[in-house]
């Protein structure tokens, strides 16, 4: 029951945090223009396709060393917080999760290319492991909530973006894309989103000639907090990558549950 108590504490703590200051999400370095892509060898590149133009939010998963560095000045931050609020107990003091500084947001445009009726998006990122965390569907603002903003808080995938190359994560199928047969609705009656990994014969933009393009190697990720208070859902199962046993995320490669 220890984790139950922890969750209860977190849940109750949320009530005290409702007035916390807003943290902005950084816009992604989204590539448009025309002509061949000039690769910056110090950056990674993430490519994805959408039938309808939309926004997406990715979470860069902070490496352990970064997490340690972030948490080191906790005692300093505590003293600073106590100087503003003398009644603050150490036990009640929490720093904002490091994750909140690691979201990036793509926007409806610019589009890198259009191939086979799909909008191809390309963003330049710090190399690292990324997770498709949110889909912002419809006409929405980078910094504001939308009614149909959906978080894949209950199951998603992560992949690595290496320096000097493009990682192709395939197509994100929005919940009202019109091609193919519709997916069965989730328990709230809404259609789910799906990630369709790139096929072996996926056509590549002529703008990427001479650039190393690799298909993403996905691994399943477990539940994450609903940082932005969005609608919650999960990506549809992906054979060999992501499946579910009720609400438990199963690593499709090992068959092991992810807690």
């Amino acid at each position, binding site marked *: 029951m220890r984790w139950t108590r922890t969750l209860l504490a977190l849940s109750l703590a949320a009530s005290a945090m409702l007035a916390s200051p807003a943290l902005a999400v950084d816009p992604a370095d989204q590539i448009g223009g025309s002509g061949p892509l000039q690769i910056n060898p110090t950056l990674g590149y993430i490519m994805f396709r959408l039938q309808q133009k939309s926004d997406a939010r990715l979470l860069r998963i902070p490496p352990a060393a970064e997490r340690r560095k972030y948490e080191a000045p906790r005692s300093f931050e505590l003293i600073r917080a106590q100087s503003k609020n003398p009644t603050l107990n150490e036990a009640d003091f929490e720093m904002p999760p490091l994750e909140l500084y690691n979201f990036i947001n793509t926007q409806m445009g610019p589009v890198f290319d259009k191939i086979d009726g799909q909008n191809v998006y390309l963003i330049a990122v710090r190399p690292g492991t990324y997770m498709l965390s949110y889909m912002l569907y419809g006409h929405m603002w980078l910094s504001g909530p939308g009614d149909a903003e959906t978080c894949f808080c209950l199951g998603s995938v992560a992949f690595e973006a290496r320096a000097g190359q493009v990682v192709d994560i395939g197509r994100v199928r929005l919940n009202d894309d019109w091609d193919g047969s519709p997916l069965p609705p989730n328990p709230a009656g809404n259609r789910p989103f799906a990630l369709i990994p790139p096929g072996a014969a996926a056509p590549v933009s002529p703008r990427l000639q001479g650039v190393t393009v690799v298909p993403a190697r996905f691994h399943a990720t477990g539940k994450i907090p609903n940082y932005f*208070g969005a609608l*919650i859902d999960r990506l549809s199962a992906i054979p060999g990558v992501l499946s579910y046993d009720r609400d438990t995320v199963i690593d499709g490669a090992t068959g092991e549950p992810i807690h």
Partner: protein
Amino acid sequence: MAGVAVLAQPAIAADPPAVVESADPYDPPPLAFTPTPDVARDFDKYFYFHRDNTSFAEALADIIECDYLSHAAEFGAFSGSRSLMTHKANLRVCMGYKGYQRYGLPRDLWLKFNAEDSKALPPEAEHTRMMMQQARLASGPAPAQPALN
């Protein structure tokens, strides 16, 4: 703890009571009602969960987890700005994936163990009581009424 202390007092008998509320503050209220079309129209808004073969501890853990995931996490950028509809849709998704079924209620009964204010959570003791009662219902006897879709 004030909320619990008050609730723990014996119910004052009305004239004469059809049902007596339990002195145990975590016992859910009696849920007998007549499902008129007016009441049924609001079942999408007012409901509770139940799953067969589920212990109280499992149900409580599930309810706490789904409550936590259904609204903005602490330090969330847009905390408190979401609608109650989003919160309820999220509970349906989270509990639904866990295999719970949903049962409709009239608003007045629902309000006995749920909060309707979307801007702030109820005080801690009240929030705890609500989740405890929800967990007892979720793990208790199977409801006589049919489950909602």
